[in-house]
């Protein structure tokens, strides 16, 4: 049976979770020590290289530029307000009689008044007048009979 650290014991040594006995062995045993150093060296080099690489990369400057969205929002809001204002005005205008139609109505009224005034007989006599032609037509006949 080997006295060297097992794979799991080595891994625990790397993580600093090994028992005191294993830690001591890792320091004393040249073979185990070499294995541990090989791993830690490689990881440390990897860390250094990655850190240097990332430091070389340019960091984009963060600038809070005004996005086009507020302008769009303002436009949408403006259109919405315009529509909201326009609808009641439009409805009010629709309700009001137009000047042309008002003039026409005046003319019609005046014509009616004129027609009313230009009647040959008063309105109360109109019913009688309806019968009048019949009366007139009968009268001569009677006269002729006489």
């Amino acid at each position, binding site marked *: 049976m080997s006295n060297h650290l097992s794979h799991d014991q080595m891994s625990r040594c790397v993580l600093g979770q090994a028992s005191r006995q294993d830690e001591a062995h890792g320091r004393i045993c040249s073979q185990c020590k070499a294995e541990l150093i090989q791993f830690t060296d490689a990881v440390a080099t990897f860390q250094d290289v990655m850190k240097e690489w990332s*430091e070389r990369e340019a960091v984009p400057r963060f600038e809070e530029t005004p996005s086009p969205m507020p302008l769009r929002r303002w436009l949408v809001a403006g259109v919405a307000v315009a529509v909201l204002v326009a609808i009641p005005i439009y409805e009010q205008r629709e309700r009001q009689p137009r000047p042309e139609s008002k003039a026409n109505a005046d003319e019609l009224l005046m014509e009616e008044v004129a027609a009313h005034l230009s009647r040959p007989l008063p309105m109360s006599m109109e019913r009688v007048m309806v019968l009048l032609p019949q009366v007139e037509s009968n009268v001569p006949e009677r006269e002729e009979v006489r």
Partner: protein
Amino acid sequence: MTEKRPLYECMEPTTTFGFVASGMESPTTEIQDFDRVMQLYWPRVLRFVMVSVRDRDVAETLTQDCFLNAYRSRHSFRGDSSVNTWLMRIAVNGVRKFFRNRRLQFWRQLQQSSVDASMMNELVGDRSISPETRTLVSEQVRAVWDATKNLSERQRTVFLLRFMEDMNILEIAAATGLTKGSVNVHLFRAVRAVRKSMGRTK
């Protein structure tokens, strides 16, 4: 010429889950200066996403999405965790969403098999080191890169947050939404799998 120190070296652990830059204010105050947040945390998020998705363009897009989401929801950030942990949580969710998108699976498989070689040169960069050292570095990076490729999504996430971002178990739990025990289990399995994989490639 002064040597440029990586930003993470200026960071220190806090009582909350994560790191904040030295002398910085509380997380809720820190998030107000979003430009500074971008400068500070963009590299961290980018490299995490990069190793997760293994495609530079996708990584940049997901990182942008992460910061866009963070910017939009910055008012709802209560400061329960550090800004770093909060951003990492958003990034982890972004990566998870990306992998759930089945429509991209074929394309992802194609990318993973073809891009890795050129990616390695880009990652190692033009370091002023000897060719021998460069070869050694490339080998080590490739070994970890290939080993993490075969991990499950959760194992990879936990592994990267621990070994690339130096986050502790509580921070990882907060960033992934897993319990502490679950993080430990995933991390142990990830380390075991990576070690096995590296042993094979040796």
